């Protein structure tokens, strides 16, 4: 299983901050968003917005990065500070 985290308004769209997905083989971030989009078009397009960043195991990555079982992928919308 890989852990997906949806912060800020993305959590509202995903119906919760955390979700687990089983990955039989590694997927790129882009491919994983494709899977999510197939299940929920609105969520998928929100995850592709230009200002959303991706963090894989705590490091910012681009959509080519590969996600495997055991990884944590976080979707970070623009931050809003304190």
């Amino acid at each position: 299983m890989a852990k997906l985290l949806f912060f800020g308004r993305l959590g509202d769209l995903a119906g919760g901050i955390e979700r687990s997905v089983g990955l039989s083989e590694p997927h790129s971030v882009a491919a994983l968003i494709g899977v999510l989009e197939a299940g929920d078009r609105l969520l998928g397009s929100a995850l592709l917005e230009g200002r959303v960043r991706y963090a894989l195991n705590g490091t910012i990555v681009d959509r080519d990065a590969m996600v495997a079982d055991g990884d944590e992928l976080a979707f970070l919308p623009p931050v809003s500070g304190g």
Partner: protein
Amino acid sequence: MLRRVTIASGPFDPEAEIAAFRKALHDSGAIVTFTGQVRPSNGDGSVTTLSLQHYPGMTERGIEAMLDQVAERWPLEAVLVIHRVGDMRPHDPIVLVATASAHRRAAFEAADYLMDYLKSRALFWKSETSASGRAWIEPRDEDYANAARWDAYPGGG
């Protein structure tokens, strides 16, 4: 440089923290603090609850990396960052930054710089609940502009 970063899930007392921070100093003559607290109104209605979310671990590492930069840029004896997460009510403290230095210019600039980082780049997501419902807040242009001031800054204390 002494440093402490705390993400607080419950209320904190800014003045008790400032007092403890100041008591631990040896050679600083200048202490600057910034306290941010929940404003009762946001312009289009009164806020009942402000909620802050962070990414445990990654948010703290981002702040620590920023403190590495601050330590290189300004001659500080100590820095303190406390940031609330969770639900807050009007007048509750949200953030406290304290800096101490022999030189007041260094203390002012470092506190100002850290606040610009915390407001525009640190990993916090904020929603406000008011009479008109719950809304996620994204940074204002003003916050980006404040943070961008430092990019052209010649550096040094």
